[in-house]
């Protein structure tokens, strides 16, 4: 059940919003102190309210496991300033053997036996290409069973690897923090005096506009001003999607890199505007993935793909992570944090892990239980991420570190809806994949 409508002003408009089920109406501003909500709007809202509330409840609290992250190695060939994985794990960690990885994949396959949908497996942090041989073997052998994704710094990526990944339709995320090699390599050092810049750019060029490519930029105070330039740079390389993710502070030492929230909002919005202008005026479209997700949270909340801004988040609910040693943890952010293993996949079933207390603890953390979030209009658009990060600060039941940034971005998303710019903010393919649940016309 929803708590009803709230009204707030956004530039020249009044936004009427039900924060619980994300029903919204935008009307032209009726003056500084007056808000007039038409009777037709109220009646329409009354008609759809219960249905929308039930849909959102199901969306937020269902436990449909659809992706599993596998960290096939703890080791990394880089030393990123903000990495959430503890240094000693990255340097001396374990790597899976083929037999271990094969065991894990067989177990996952068995768990989902009988389901029509292909399960998603994403090879993730530390640097999965350090065990390229076994993950490529897995992609080849299990391509009929799973869809695969890979997150990499691209240092070990060769041209023939790119051909292989494209052939098997692997979703690929490449980490790159700036269009400037010096800024990027300062944030993402690897080897002596170098970083991943030249490798990442070379790989992006090899991918040559591949639709399954995302470039992920982690935003810190060192590269916050580079965001619009980063969008321009990636557009020139035909990249279809960039994610401009504010850094997480799961590792407390990274606090010194925190970007100022106002600056972050300012340059993030400039990056979004840059992407719109480029998409509008050229043949190639580029989207800012996390802003697209904010737009979707408003116009198509059930079509959201990124899990961090849903409350409870997707960790331990829609996905979980298997570490190189086989520990099942709610999300990769929990690596190195004690008390969050749902069991070891070499000994425990996935079903048991899903009902384990550590997993349940993450699913139990949602915005209605968090002071300030529980009365915030945007609580089901931002989702108050991230429990792992906030746990590191001593208590996961607190608002997001970037609360003010999210508020600014959400207001901007409503502005983009008013200005009819949504068509430039989502992928090209999306127009054929979305249809109206309703389109209220008061006339």
């Amino acid at each position: 059940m929803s708590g009803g409508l709230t009204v707030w002003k956004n530039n020249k408009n009044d936004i009427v919003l039900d924060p619980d089920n994300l029903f919204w109406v935008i009307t032209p501003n009726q003056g500084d102190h007056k808000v007039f909500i038409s009777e037709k709007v109220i009646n329409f809202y009354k008609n759809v309210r219960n249905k929308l509330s039930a849909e959102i409840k199901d969306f937020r609290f269902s436990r449909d496991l659809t992706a599993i992250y596998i960290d096939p190695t703890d080791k990394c060939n880089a030393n990123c300033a903000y990495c959430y994985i503890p240094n000693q794990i990255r340097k001396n960690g374990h790597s899976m053997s083929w037999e271990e990885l094969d065991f894990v994949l067989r177990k996952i396959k068995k768990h989902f036996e009988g389901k029509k949908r292909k399960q998603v497996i994403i090879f993730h942090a530390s640097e999965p290409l350090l065990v390229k041989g076994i993950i490529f073997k897995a992609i080849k052998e299990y391509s009929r069973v799973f869809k695969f994704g890979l997150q990499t710094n691209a240092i070990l990526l060769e041209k023939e690897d790119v051909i292989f990944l494209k052939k098997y339709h692997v979703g690929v995320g490449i980490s790159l923090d700036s269009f400037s090699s010096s800024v990027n390599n300062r944030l993402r050092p690897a080897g002596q005096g170098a970083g991943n810049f030249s490798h990442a750019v070379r790989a992006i060029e090899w991918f040559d506009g591949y639709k399954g490519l995302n470039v992920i930029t982690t935003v810190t105070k060192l590269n916050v001003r580079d965001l619009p330039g980063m969008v321009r740079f990636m557009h020139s390389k035909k990249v279809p999607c960039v994610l401009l993710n504010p850094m997480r502070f799961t590792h407390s030492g990274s606090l010194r890199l925190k970007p100022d929230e106002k600056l972050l909002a300012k340059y993030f919005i400039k990056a979004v505007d840059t992407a719109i202008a480029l998409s509008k005026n050229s043949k190639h479209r580029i989207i800012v993935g996390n802003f697209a997700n904010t737009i979707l949270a408003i116009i198509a909340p059930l079509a959201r793909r990124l899990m961090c801004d849903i409350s409870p988040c997707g960790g331990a609910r829609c996905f979980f992570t298997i570490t190189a040693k086989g520990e099942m943890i709610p999300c990769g952010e929990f690596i190195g944090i004690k008390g969050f293993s749902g069991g070891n996949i070499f000994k425990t079933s996935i079903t048991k892990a899903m009902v384990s207390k550590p997993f349940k603890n993450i699913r139990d953390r949602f915005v209605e239980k968090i002071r300030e979030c529980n009365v915030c209009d945007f609580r089901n658009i931002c989702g108050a991420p991230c429990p792992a990060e906030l746990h590191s600060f001593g208590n996961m039941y607190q608002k997001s570190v970037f609360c003010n940034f999210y508020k600014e971005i959400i207001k901007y998303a409503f502005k983009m809806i008013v200005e009819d710019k949504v068509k430039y903010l989502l992928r090209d393919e999306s127009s054929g994949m979305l249809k109206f649940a309703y389109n209220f016309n008061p006339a």
Partner: protein
Amino acid sequence: MAQKKRVRALKQVKEERAGSGTIAYRLKCAKTANGLSHFVMYGDVQKEKTVL
């Protein structure tokens, strides 16, 4: 009576004013189940995946 008419007319004007430029819609996935069941953070290659 005249007063009643005036109130009704005012209400109509307000309705029209509020109606013009009013935006309220919701979209849903047409070819797929809704978002969560199609979560793939990296890539939009297969047709059956939902949009980002």
